């Protein structure tokens, strides 16, 4: 509303004082020349304004002087250097948000100048389909977030399928109030990231909120995992892809180190280490977003549900089958005494055999070797 009032005031002003300002067609007298340029710090900067592009732009109905305010009282030639355009004259909300957020970019860095289109237009630099290349024009110089995003499922969906169903930079980071993740108000701050992801993934968010992880987040947010604790924020992997399956143990082990160690001591873990994505990793048995502690009747690893859980892969799993201990650690005498003593017995057997035959073989070798060196053929 405020913007409309301002625009109306400008239009009135312009209409009321035609003699004072340069008209847009005056401007085109010079600026439609596509060789018109100036030199800034050794760089040639074009001063050409394509009339057609401008007319089709969202500001196409406005006159040059509406934005270039220092043309208001110019009658003939303006000074060589014009002041920077203040977009905040109309778009004060957006400018205030940018200033509060602290994003270093100027309006024109993202939106362009004379070619600004509405954000809904697929050709707009800030349309979801293009936003990422706009952001990445600067950000690929600072960090790897852009290249990670392109690799991830969000990036691939947006780039390859060109469908705006996936998350571009602005969907998570916002448009004008962009802030660092370490700031309270940031949409990607630890305590807000779940809601941000939940905008597009509401079912997942709901499941997570009723899980042990969601509970922990409500209780003591600092230690609980949020979306980005398990899903790399930019390189969002599709969870069914091999790359995610093979690294899920590593992700969970950031908090559950002991469990990932004992997992590796057993068949599933060993196969995972050697690149078998099909075998069960953490989430096949514990669930992903729905993880609940083993004593919860809804938990996948609750004794009542184990037959079904193991049965996902092992058709025919029964009450005997589920007595297998997938996290057994035979070094742990307190929790697995039977396995520990079996292991000790096997090691004892190993050492006994090698102790006896080791000495036996060594003595034999020395005896025969000596006999051979002395050349007494019949003594061996």
């Amino acid at each position: 509303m405020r913007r409309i009032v301002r625009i109306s005031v400008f239009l009135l002003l312009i209409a009321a004082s035609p003699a004072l300002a340069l008209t847009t067609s005056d401007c085109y007298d010079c600026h439609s020349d596509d060789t018109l340029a100036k030199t800034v710090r050794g760089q040639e900067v074009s001063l050409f304004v394509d009339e057609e592009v401008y007319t089709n732009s969202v500001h196409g109905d406005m006159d040059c002087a509406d934005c270039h305010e220092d043309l208001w009282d110019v009658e003939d030639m303006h000074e060589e250097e014009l002041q920077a355009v203040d977009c905040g004259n109309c778009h004060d909300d957006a400018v205030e948000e940018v200033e509060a957020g602290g994003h270093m970019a100027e309006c024109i860095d993202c939106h362009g100048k004379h070619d600004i289109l509405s954000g809904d237009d697929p050709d707009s630099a800030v349309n979801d389909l293009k936003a990422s290349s706009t952001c990445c024009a600067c950000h690929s110089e600072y960090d790897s977030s852009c290249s990670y995003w392109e690799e991830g499922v969000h990036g691939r969906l947006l780039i390859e399928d060109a469908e705006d169903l996936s998350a571009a930079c602005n969907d998570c980071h916002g448009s004008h109030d962009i802030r660092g993740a370490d700031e309270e108000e940031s949409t990607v701050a630890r305590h807000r990231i779940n809601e941000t992801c939940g905008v597009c993934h509401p079912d997942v968010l709901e499941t997570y909120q009723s899980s042990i992880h969601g509970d922990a987040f409500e209780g003591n947010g600092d230690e609980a995992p949020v979306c980005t604790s398990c899903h790399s924020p930019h390189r969002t992997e599709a969870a069914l892809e091999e790359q995610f399956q093979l690294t899920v143990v590593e992700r969970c082990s950031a908090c559950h180190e002991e469990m990932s160690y004992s997992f590796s001591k057993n068949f599933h873990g060993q196969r995972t280490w050697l690149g078998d994505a099909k075998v069960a990793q953490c989430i096949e048995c514990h669930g992903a977003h729905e993880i609940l502690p083993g004593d919860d009747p809804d938990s996948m690893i609750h004794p009542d549900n184990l037959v079904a859980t193991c049965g996902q892969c092992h058709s025919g799993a029964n009450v005997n089958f589920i007595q297998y201990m997938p996290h057994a650690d035979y070094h742990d005498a307190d929790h697995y005494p039977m396995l520990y003593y079996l292991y000790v017995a096997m090691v004892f057997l190993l050492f006994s055999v090698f102790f006896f035959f080791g000495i036996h073989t060594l003595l034999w070798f020395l005896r025969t070797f000596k006999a051979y060196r002395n050349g007494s053929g019949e003594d061996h």
Partner: protein
Amino acid sequence: MTQDSQPNKEEQVGRWYLRFNWYHRFIHVLIMFSFLGLVITGMPLKFYSEGWAQVLTRAMGGIEAAGFWHRVCGAVTFLYFFLHLVYALYYIIRIRREPILKWAFGPDSMLPSIKDVEDVTGHILWFMGLGERPKFDHFTYWEKFDYLAVFWGVGIIGLSGLTLWFPEFFSLFLPGWVFNVSIILHSDEAILASGFIFTIHFFNTHLRPEKFPLDHVVFTGKMSEEEFRHERPLEYERMVREGRLEAFETSPPSRAALLWSNIVGILTYAIGLSVLFLIFYSLIAQLH
């Protein structure tokens, strides 16, 4: 042969005697190939976190392929085990010439006897220069140990391997913690078996100075008279006494047979000793 000269085991002149028939040799080759296959496809799983385990798994075409060949070799193991039992039964029923108990504790049986205990002691005393070298018969005590160890090994590794191959079936009548037991038995027994074969068996049977670089007898089936008299004097004397020696006389091994034995033997050393090195390297690395 002079006082100083060594008995030349590769000498292809003189008399030669048949020690192993084609069935024995065939079973030994089956054991060799399936055992090497099992070790190569199985060890990466035991040492999953080592770089070489991951490289080897990739080289085999991934964990699925390695698992497939491991099971194929496991099936061959059960096959030779079965074939041997059939042979042993056939031997006991049809070939055995003595009453069963006399045979069982006599020199032609694989079962341990009092003489084996005496031979172990005598042999060790001889190692230390404290006595005469014992006179051996058809099977020495270390050969019997190798033989019986395969029964133990195939029993432990084979059964535990089967439970891990078909867990759903075995859980019909066994509790699931049996699979935890199987994992320990299977992997630790595998270390014992491969460690034993690649050091003790290699040395005792092939690499000791008299046999170096390889005892061909298990491939060609033939041993020279000189070797026979030296290695197994009791058997030799007994056969002479009983007049049965001529029946075992055979032609000298062909050059082709010796060449083939050498190629297979050296490849087996190369694989076995490489795996042995990797096992040692990894076990020591894991201590730190």
